[in-house]
């Protein structure tokens, strides 16, 4: 094949130029660099650059825009710096968006009520999820797998549709009211839709699997002989639970609570579908600022403030996540 080609004048020319190129200093240097940059840093760079570009930089932009002024334009915010003349740059930073958050009671109330709703929902998830996870971890291995499957199954079906399902159950002529009315328990339908109650229900329902799974995995790993040893040493079951099972499941409790609390604070879909107009949640405020009022700077300021609120829980979560990963090794 190569022989046939060597008669071809074009082939000869390519070979000639390749040799010339190969002998240039620039080529040698760049090949040397290419050799030294072996796979390792290159492989590390792939996820690194992606996350820097699509995860870190966006936050910096949000931070930047939270200091800008709103404008009716596209994009609807003022630039932070402008060239007034060719040699002077004007930097305009405004704290007014953050000031706005403090002045207007709407934002303060939204933050407080988001934290309250998320906190109470997390607590409810824990109270419902712990006995379930405990029961699953203590059942026979074959039953255990089926129960685990039943926990995971709703997770694979649409979150949005599962929230939607509650509308059919809760509304005034919905399933629950219809059943209660037909049984004669109530005369008038109970108003459940568009209340805080519906929001709590929706959050607990949607996030329950996130609580159960980490709890289950810590409880399942637990050595049962510890409880036998405790019983052998004269510890009663309730006390053994409080002194042994509960302390050992703390990593699972923390992971589960963080997995519920953090996303619940910023939840949008559930208050939008199940909550009433007076159900204030910060995710919903941000959404409305952005989509309805088109005030990007204020939306950014809301996001930054929400992030500051969540920094501690997120870091707590990462710490335990890292510990879990290390324990695996």
């Amino acid at each position: 094949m190569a022989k046939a080609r060597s008669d071809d004048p074009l082939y000869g020319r390519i070979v000639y130029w390749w040799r010339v190129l190969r002998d240039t200093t620039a080529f040698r240097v760049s090949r040397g660099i290419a050799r030294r940059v072996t796979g390792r840093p290159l492989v590390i760079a792939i996820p690194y650059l992606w996350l820097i570009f699509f995860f870190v930089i966006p936050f910096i932009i949000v931070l930047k825009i939270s200091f800008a002024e709103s404008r009716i334009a596209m994009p609807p915010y003022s630039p932070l710096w402008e060239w007034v003349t060719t040699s002077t740059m004007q930097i305009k930073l405004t704290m007014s968006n953050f000031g706005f958050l403090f002045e207007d009671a709407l934002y303060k109330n939204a933050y407080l009520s988001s934290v309250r709703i998320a906190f109470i929902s997390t607590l409810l998830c824990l109270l419902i999820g712990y006995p379930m996870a405990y029961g699953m971890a203590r059942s026979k291995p074959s039953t255990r797998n089926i129960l685990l499957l039943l926990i995971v199954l709703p997770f694979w079906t649409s979150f949005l549709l599962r929230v939607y399902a509650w509308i059919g159950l809760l509304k005034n002529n919905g399933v629950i009211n219809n059943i209660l009315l037909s049984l004669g328990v109530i005369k008038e339908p109970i108003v459940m839709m568009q209340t805080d109650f519906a929001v709590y229900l929706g959050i607990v329902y949607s996030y329950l699997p996130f609580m159960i799974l980490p709890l289950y995995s810590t409880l399942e790993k637990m050595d049962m002989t510890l409880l036998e040893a405790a019983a052998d040493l004269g510890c009663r079951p309730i006390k053994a639970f409080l002194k042994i099972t509960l302390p050992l499941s703390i990593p699972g409790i923390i992971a589960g609570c963080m997995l519920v609390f953090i996303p619940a604070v910023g939840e949008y879909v559930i208050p939008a579908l199940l909550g009433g107009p007076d159900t204030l949640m910060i995710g919903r405020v941000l959404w409305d600022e952005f989509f309805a009022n088109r005030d990007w700077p204020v939306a950014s300021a809301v996001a930054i403030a929400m992030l500051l609120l969540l920094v501690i829980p997120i870091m707590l979560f990462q710490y335990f996540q890292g510990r879990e990963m290390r324990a695996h090794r």
Partner: protein
Amino acid sequence: MIGKRSVFILTALVLGFAFLYIPIISMVVFSFNYSKLVTVWDAYNSPTLKWYFSMFSNEQLLDSAKLSIEIAAMNATGAVVLGTVAGLVLARFGHFRGRTLLAGMTSAPLVMPEVITGLSLLLLFVTMESLFGWPAGRGMTTITIAHMTFSMAYVTVIVQSRLATFDESLEEAAMDLGAHPTKVFFVITLPIILPAILSGWLLSFTLSWDDLVISSFVSGPGATTLPMLIFSKVKLGVNPEINALATVLVAIVSVGVIFAALWMRRQERIRDRDVQMAIAANQ
């Protein structure tokens, strides 16, 4: 042993699972209801498949479902590549400068409220467009990129924990026998973590398929994903076509998950039997 305690646990399990499944079951049941009022059972004309027919002839719905599937598949494929590399780096590359930052960046999207992720990515895309002219407008591409960024975090966790459960000496052995690290990855590591990669792909697909908030932020005119369409419909109240759609989805997912579970259990049994035989043969 049925004590007070196990009665309590049993009750918790039964009530808990009822809580998880009653809404889904009611949604399925009422999808066969003839009445447009959905929750008022029309005993005379029901059950009916009317809403299924009307759903499958709804062009808008089918279009957005198609768009969602495309985005979900692209997202899952991209997220698996990125997440596998990130998981490999975190589990196998030992210490390097900036490892903590990478670990933090891969686990933060797991809990980040969606409204924040959505807003920040939209602002990035707008800024990029004004700086480089790309991406021109928003739609499928921007939604896919946004989904990949949070899906890869899930894949990373899955791959990383799978790598943690198998011995690094397998890869060392392959290298010791003369395979270059790149080859070791493709011949040894990849086949072993394949189940994790597969479940990562499926999870990423579902996450993307299910996402409303982030898509709403980074989408543009003309790119309406299925969750966006569903949301705009259900905001107005219950809708029998949505019930039918939900039933179809639940059916597909249940069948898929149950088959996967059965298959995995079968593999496990075969494996257990092999191990037993190996032990028996030795004695």
